[in-house]
């Protein structure tokens, strides 16, 4: 068993604001991230696939297929977008890094079998770096 990790980048803006709280509560909860005009980050996304080493190809995962999947399911919709306005999922969901991870996970899991129809490789970990100091990790 081996794990292969690929790093991707997207630049996006967001605003943290929950309809369940008052203006004042939102400001207290999210601080600067509640700024009404939004703000942006250069997000770094790491996707780890795990599986046995295929002796013929010497590969665990066909990187070109992984790139295509992440590009079509994540980067195309997320890169250079205002997440709150441009993505359906964030019409009802606050685009915190935690929620962004859940959306990315759902998108990748849903379309994973189209790219990787066999038992392996499987999606093992997703990591999202919002800034140098904030790293979020999800194991489906």
């Amino acid at each position, binding site marked *: *068993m*081996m*794990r*292969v*990790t*690929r*790093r*991707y980048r997207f630049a996006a803006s967001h605003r943290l604001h929950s309809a369940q709280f008052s203006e004042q509560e939102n400001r207290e909860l999210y601080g600067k991230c509640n700024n009404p005009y939004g703000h942006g980050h250069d997000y770094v996304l790491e996707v780890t696939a795990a599986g*046995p*080493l295929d002796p*013929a*190809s*010497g*590969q*665990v995962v*066909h*990187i*070109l297929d992984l790139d295509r999947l992440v590009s079509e399911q994540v980067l195309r919709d997320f890169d250079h977008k205002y997440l709150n306005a441009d993505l359906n999922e964030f019409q009802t969901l606050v685009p915190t890094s935690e929620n962004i991870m859940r959306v990315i996970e759902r998108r990748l899991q849903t379309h994973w079998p189209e790219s990787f129809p066999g038992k392996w490789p499987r999606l093992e970990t997703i990591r999202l770096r919002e800034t140098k100091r904030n790293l979020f990790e999800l194991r489906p």
Partner: protein
Amino acid sequence: MLITRRAEFSASHVCSQPQLTPEQNRQIYGAAANPSGHGHNYVLEVTLEGDPDPATGMVFDLKKLKDVIQQTVIEPMDHRFLNHEVPPFDKIVPTTENLAAEIWNRLQPHFDSARARLRNVRLYETEDLYVDYAGNPS
């Protein structure tokens, strides 16, 4: 406790299977199938696991770890064309996966003491692509 030592080497390679056509290799490996080869600055992270020796306060002598990595990996692979100069890559494809497994196999015999064992090999082919291997291919 885990301790990790990082080392770098630069090498060139071609990813292709001799029994496939150039077109098929291109589909599997993309630009990495270019027959003339191309190179990377590989970054290797070797992680050992163990309890610190109560007398020395060390899991493993880091100088010794550096020497093992140097002798088994860096000297034979640095500034080499892997397919032509570093067996077994005359016979198997030098993908990052195969290279990580080969490095594991070269390092593993040096860390079979009761105190420290080889826990993980992480090999970065580029900043954006790395492989983790902890033994036991399946």
